[in-house]
């Protein structure tokens, strides 16, 4: 059995809430069968107060083995490097100190969510709190633990980025650790597990037909492709949200709104309104990943010229107003 400890700091707890959405099977069954023993989780465990502190001390003094340390939420290093924006309840000690001490002895350290990975939403705006990730501060390697940090296993921090994470991203990463199959090669250059980060949100998007013909949505709620006007970053965002849906059959683009690239460092400050596509000379600034610009522009013009009436009309409507034509073989 691998002992797993889960702590939360400068975040919303939404990644834990999402983890509870795990299905086929539920998260508790999954942990049990993966050989993961939950030492403590803020939403699930019985131990509170002194019982929890005793357990943490047992880990630090070597009486209790720590295999996997999961951290959710940004590391609050302010004010002035003191970490006092989050003193862990009942302990008088900054959470950043707890995390450093525990990460030093954990076999694996896992950042759950974009806050713990890169700073995330908590680091947005002026970042008064000096919120940062475990091993990245935005796109820059470093963060609380430093660029050179490795866990006892010799591996860097695993960044299960997302705001929130999909429950399967967490459970499958933990399963791969439990199976002894994890190493740094399983991660991309931002430390994300490639199992989900080698895909694009665009893959399997239900609006693909609109994308093909550049039939674009204009207002929130329109059925068309949201890349041209609505700020959608699905063609650049590394995640499998449309091939591995959320809460049954959902995804951001299925839910009527654009992908905001929440698995990427610094997604929280895109430099433009989230739901408006920045353009230069009428051409969207962010082009689809790996697409040569000249080709994209040429193809877009060609497909716009060929957009079927059905897609043109449906793209700017909430309702399906023009169903696909039925072709009869006879008559």
């Amino acid at each position, binding site marked *: 059995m691998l002992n797993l400890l889960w702590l939360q700091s400068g975040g919303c707890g939404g990644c834990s*809430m999402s983890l509870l959405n795990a299905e086929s099977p539920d998260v508790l069954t999954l942990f049990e069968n993966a050989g993961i023993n939950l030492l403590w989780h803020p939403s699930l465990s019985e131990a509170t107060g002194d019982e929890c502190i005793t357990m943490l001390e047992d880990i630090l003094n070597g009486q209790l083995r720590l295999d996997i340390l999961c951290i959710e939420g940004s590391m609050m290093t302010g004010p002035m490097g003191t970490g006092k924006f989050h003193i862990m309840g009942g302990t008088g000690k900054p959470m950043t100190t707890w995390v450093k001490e525990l990460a030093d002895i954990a076999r694996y350290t896992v950042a759950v969510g974009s806050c713990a990975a890169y700073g995330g939403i908590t680091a947005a705006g002026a970042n008064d709190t000096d919120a940062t990730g475990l091993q990245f501060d935005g796109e820059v390697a470093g963060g609380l633990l430093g660029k050179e940090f490795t866990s006892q296993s010799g591996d860097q921090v695993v960044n299960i980025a997302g705001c929130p994470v999909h429950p399967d991203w967490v459970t499958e990463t933990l399963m791969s650790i439990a199976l002894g199959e994890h190493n740094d090669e399983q991660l991309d250059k931002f430390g994300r597990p490639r199992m989900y980060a080698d895909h694009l949100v665009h893959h399997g998007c239900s609006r693909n037909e609109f994308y093909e013909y550049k039939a674009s949505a204009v207002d929130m709620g329109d059925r068309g492709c949201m890349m041209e006007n609505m700020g959608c970053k699905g063609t650049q965002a590394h995640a499998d949200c449309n091939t591995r849906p959320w809460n*049954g059959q959902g995804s*951001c683009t299925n839910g009527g709104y654009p992908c905001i690239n929440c698995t990427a460092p610094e997604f929280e400050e895109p430099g433009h309104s989230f739901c408006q596509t920045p353009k230069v000379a009428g051409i969207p600034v962010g082009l689809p990943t790996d697409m040569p610009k000249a080709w994209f522009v040429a193809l877009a013009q060609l497909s716009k010229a060929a957009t079927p009436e059905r897609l043109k009309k449906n793209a700017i409507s909430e309702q399906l107003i023009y169903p696909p034509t039925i072709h009869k073989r006879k008559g």
Partner: protein
Amino acid sequence: MSRIVAGPFNRVEGDLEITLQTASGKVQSAEVNSPLYRGFERILLGHKPMDALVYTPRICGICSVTQSVASARALADVMNLSMPVNGELCTNLVLANENITDLLTHFYLFFMPDFARDTYADKPWFNDIHSRFKATSGSAAAQMLPARADFLHLMGIMAGKWPHTLSLQPGGVAKAIEPKERMRLLAIVAGFKRFLENTLFGDSLATISQLQSEAELWQWCDEKDWQQSDFRRFLQVARVQELSTLGRGTDHFLSFGAYGLQGQTLWASGSYCQGDNKPLAISQIAEDHSHSWMTNTGSPHPPAQGITQPSLDNEAGYSWCKAPRLANQVVEVGPLARQVVDGHPLIRDLVARSGGNVLSRIVARLLEMALVVQQMELWIKQIDPKAPFCHHGEMPGEARGVGLVEAARGSLGHWLEVKNGKISNYQIIAPTSWNFSPRDNQEQPGALEQAVVGAPVAEGEKTPVSVQHIVRSFDPCMACTVH
């Protein structure tokens, strides 16, 4: 007098610490500390107003949708925008889906496991409660988690995902419901209703909703064996442990009113104290900084003029939470407050007999599940897939707006100011800011601080279990509290 610092509290959302002064085996006074500051009110400054819809749900992963709704309503107020009926119905459904999920999660995962603690091993009810509710290994969690996940499939369809959606907009919803999806929604709610009736209540939702008094509640409870359903299990424990005598609050309640549709709300807004029901007076809300780690502004100020400047220099400070007050009074918010303000006869009777306490807070939560899930079926049927779902409007360069909503844990308000097309002030008062506030400049303790006074503390207890029951009976959300 001896001092106990209890924390970290888990099975609450976020981090929490409580300092207790105890004497003669009882809590004499308490100070509640919300130990994490993130500063959303400052993060939002200078951003485009519509971008609040991305930031504000991320204040909280468990009340995410309620933050979205409050933000969308503040934006709608600024834009002078109304919703089509479909927009209201879909907003209500998404909001209800989150609220009911939260009430369910609270009961099964956060609240009940405390009764499975070894400290209760000699109680006659212990063996059953232990095997049912033991944290992580009890049979209830294994049943409840799949039911919860299935119920949240409604979010998948209507909001894309949960938590953190962008489908909730000032003028309605960005996701229009197709005819096939409307049928699927009915199927999802039917499945969840079956779970509630078979497992939680052991009776029909209609029967639970119609309980009229405390006497009828106990009579209903005794009609069957107490192990017949989880609600009866709770009532049995509550009766033996006398939970109605534990955690008496201020008995002054506030609700912003919930689930609006075509100018009416399902539950009324207002405040309620000792039989006196008053209309909602938003202008009487003010926030005090005297015991917060905030720059002390002297006198309390209304949220529209609110300031958020963190400062550890305030020597009287002991929490990052500000102290919101209604006409200088400490109030309690939550399902109990909502139902007592609205006048549900069972809840009015419980409060008349023993006030706000651990029993009445939990009964109100479970009652809301029965009430709302029936309502959800009616709302789904009223959706017209052919009619509009969202209105669109222009953002003015300068304006002020307010967005009020009821979260699972109580009243949530957003106060927004726009200048030069950008957010120039954004103030948030969350449910647990009310319930878990520190003292104010009149030295009035907050609602929880009052509720734990008198709680029994056994010899040698470092994190008194009675205090844990009281704390969790409020279902605190510390992420929202400080935001």
